[in-house]
C-alpha cells in the first residue's frame, strides 16, 4: 500500500475537503438571513397566513439574496434543495395548485395564470395559437375546459375574427359567467377586446372593443390593466384599465415625453360595460399598479408625510368616498424603498424608515390600523444596521 501514498492522499484530501464543505454549507445556509417582526401595536394574528417576497443586500454590498418570509421563518430562495427546485414547475402559486390537482389537464399549457380560470365547477384554459409566428395567418383561439366532477376535458378552436388586422394578440384575463366564457385580449395598436364564447355550443357569440387608443402621429401610448389580474385565476368583477398617451414616442426619443392623456377606465366584465373614472388631479399621480378593486370600490393608495392614504371610488354610485389614512409611528422615510399591496380588504404596507423597516396592516373597510411591527434583520448571527431590503410581493396563503 505504501507505494500508493500519492493517490491515497489525493483521494483522502479531496473527499475530506469537499465533504466538509457540503456538510458545513448545508448547516450554514439554513440560518444566514433571518428577518423577524417585532410587535409595536395591534393584533399579531394579522401576520399569520401572509408571505412576503423580497431581496436583501448586506452592508452596501452588491451581493443580492432573494428570500421569502413569514412571521415564523425566512427562506433563502437561492438555497432551495435540488429536489425542491426540480419538483417545482416554476409556475406561479395558483397554477402549482392546479398542477397538483389536475396533472394531466395542465400538461402542454402556457403556465401564465391570466390564461386560466377556476371556479367550483371547472377549470378553463385559453390560448391564442402562435401569436408570435409571422406572417400571422393562424391567429386561433384554443380553449380547453376541464369539468371538475366528471374530469372530462373538452377542447375547441375558433378562428379570431378579422385576424388580418392584428400582428399579435395576448390574453389578459379569462372569466366564466353562466356558461359564457369571456376572453379578454390585448391586441396590436393598443386595443383591448373581449371575445365571448358559448361554452355549450362551443361558438363565438360576440366580440367587442373595451378600450382603444386612437393613433396619434409620432406619439407614444400605453394601455395596461392595473388591478392585479396576472396572478388571479378566480372570478373578478372589474378590470381597471390605464390609458396613457405621450406627446413623443418613449421608445425612440431620449428626452422625457409629456403625458397628454392619462385616463382610467373601469370595465364591468359581467355586464360588458365601461366607465371612465373622473378623478381629482392629486389622485392621478398616485394611481399605479398597487391600486385595486374591492367589491365595487376602487382603492388607490398614496404615500403621505405621515403614512399612507387610500382614496376610495365607488363604481356603482360613481362617487369618491372618504379618504382613509393609516399613520405610521415612525415617519422619517427613506425614498423609494416602500411596498404597498391592497388585498382582500386589507392594506399591507412596508416602509423603509431611517431606523429600519416598518410593516403596517390596515382594514380598508373601517380605516383602522390592525397591526404595526418593526422588521429585525439578522445576517450570519449578528443584528444588522446597514443593509438594503426591498419587497416586491405580498401573498396571502391559506
Amino acid at each position, binding site marked *: 500500500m505504501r*507505494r*500508493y501514498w*500519492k*493517490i491515497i492522499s*489525493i*483521494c483522502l*484530501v*479531496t473527499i475530506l*475537503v*469537499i465533504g466538509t*464543505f*457540503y456538510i*458545513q*454549507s*448545508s448547516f*450554514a*445556509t439554513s440560518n*444566514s438571513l433571518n428577518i423577524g417582526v417585532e410587535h409595536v401595536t395591534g393584533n399579531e394574528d394579522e401576520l399569520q397566513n401572509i408571505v412576503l417576497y423580497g431581496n436583501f443586500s*448586506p*452592508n*452596501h*454590498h*452588491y*451581493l443580492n439574496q432573494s428570500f421569502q418570509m413569514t412571521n415564523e421563518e425566512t427562506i433563502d430562495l*437561492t*438555497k432551495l*434543495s*435540488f*429536489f425542491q427546485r*426540480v*419538483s*417545482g*414547475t*416554476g409556475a406561479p402559486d395558483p397554477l402549482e395548485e392546479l*398542477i397538483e390537482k389536475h*396533472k394531466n389537464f395542465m*400538461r*402542454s399549457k402556457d403556465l401564465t395564470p391570466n390564461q386560466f380560470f377556476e371556479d367550483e365547477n371547472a377549470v378553463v384554459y385559453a390560448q391564442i395559437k402562435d401569436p408570435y409566428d409571422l406572417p400571422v395567418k393562424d391567429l386561433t383561439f384554443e380553449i380547453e375546459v376541464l369539468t371538475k366532477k366528471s374530469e372530462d376535458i373538452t377542447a375547441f378552436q375558433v378562428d379570431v375574427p378579422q385576424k388580418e388586422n392584428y400582428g399579435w394578440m395576448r390574453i389578459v384575463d379569462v372569466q366564466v359567467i353562466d356558461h359564457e366564457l369571456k376572453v379578454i385580449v390585448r391586441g396590436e395598436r393598443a386595443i383591448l377586446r373581449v371575445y365571448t364564447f358559448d361554452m355549450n355550443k362551443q361558438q363565438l357569440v360576440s366580440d367587442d372593443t373595451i378600450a382603444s387608443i386612437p393613433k396619434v402621429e409620432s406619439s407614444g401610448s400605453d394601455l395596461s390593466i392595473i388591478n392585479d389580474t396576472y396572478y388571479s385565476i378566480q372570478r373578478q368583477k372589474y378590470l381597471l384599465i390605464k390609458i396613457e398617451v405621450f406627446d413623443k414616442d418613449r421608445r425612440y426619443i431620449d428626452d422625457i415625453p409629456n403625458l397628454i392623456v392619462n385616463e382610467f377606465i373601469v370595465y364591468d366584465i359581467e355586464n360588458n360595460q365601461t366607465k371612465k373614472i373622473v378623478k381629482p388631479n392629486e389622485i392621478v399621480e398616485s394611481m399605479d399598479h398597487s391600486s385595486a378593486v374591492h367589491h365595487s370600490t376602487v382603492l388607490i393608495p398614496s404615500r403621505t408625510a405621515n403614512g399612507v392614504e387610500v382614496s376610495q371610488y365607488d363604481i356603482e354610485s360613481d362617487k369618491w368616498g372618504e379618504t382613509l389614512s393609516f399613520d405610521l409611528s415612525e415617519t422619517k422615510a427613506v425614498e423609494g424603498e416602500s411596498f404597498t399591496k391592497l388585498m382582500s380588504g386589507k392594506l399591507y404596507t412596508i416602509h423603509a424608515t431611517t431606523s429600519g423597516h416598518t410593516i403596517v396592516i390596515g382594514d380598508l373597510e373601517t380605516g383602522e390600523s390592525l397591526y404595526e411591527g418593526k422588521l429585525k434583520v439578522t445576517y*450570519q448571527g449578528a443584528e444588522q444596521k446597514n443593509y438594503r431590503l426591498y419587497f416586491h410581493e405580498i401573498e396571502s396563503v391559506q
Partner: protein
Amino acid sequence: MKRYLKLVNFEVNRFLKLYLVLLGITILSQIIGVIVESQAYLKRANEVIYKDLIPKSEFIEQYGTMSFINITHSVWFTGPILACGVVLIIYVFFIWYRDWFGKNTFSYRLLMLPTARITIYIAKATTILLFVLGLVALQLLLLPVESQVLQLVVSSEFRTDLPIHAIVNSPNLGILFPNTFIEFVLYYGGGMAAVFVVFTVILFERSFRIKGIIYGILYCAASLLIFFAPLLVNAFMLNNYLYPRELFFLELAAGLIVLACAIWIGHFLLKNKIRV
C-alpha cells in the same frame, strides 16, 4: 483491483510534476491577486477620500465595501482556474496519445498487460477525475486562506466578510461549486460522462485512424442526440408535455445510457479493434 490501482498510480505519477506546477501557479496567482486587488481598492479609497475630500461613508455608499466577491472577478483569480481547466482538457487527449507517440512502443506494452484492457480505460478516467477533484479541493482550501489575507490588507470598515458558502455562490465560482451535493455529483458525473465519450472517440481514431475520425464524429453526434433526446422530443414533438421533474429523470436515464454505451464501445474497441 490491484492492477487497476497500479495503473492509476502509474498514470498519476506520469502527470504529477505538471499537476504540482498547476497547483503552485493557482496558489501564487490567487494570493497575489488578493493583495493586488485589495491595494487597488485602498488606493482608490485614498484618492477619493483625501484628494477629492469625499467622506468615508459616502465613498462606501458609492463604491461599496471590499469583499471576496470583488477578488473573484479579477483575472488573477479566474485566470489560473481557467488555465487548469484547459490543461486538463488537453490532458484528456494527451493521456492516450502519449502512449502511441511517446518513446518506444509503449501502447503495445500497455495493451499486452495481463489484465482486462478496460482496466486501462477506467484507470485513465479515474486519473482525470482525481486531478479535477483535487483542483476543486485546492480551491476550497485556498478560499479561507485568501479571506485571511484580505482581512490583513483591508481594514474592517472598508470590508464585508463573507462566509465561504456565500463566496462560492458568486457567479464565477458557482460553476465549480454547485449549490447542493446532489448537484455536485450530477454536474461532475455529467463531466465524467463527457470524458468517457471523448475517450471512446479517441479509441475510434486509434482503431481505424482516418476512417475512425469519421466514426468518432458520428458516435459523438449520436451520444449528444441520445443525451438531449428527452429535451428535444419534449419541446418539438410533445409540446412541453412533461413536467420538470419527469424531464429530470428522463435526462438522468439518457445520461446513464450514454455513459454505459461509451464504456461498452470503448471496451469493445480496446479488445477487438485497437491498433498499435
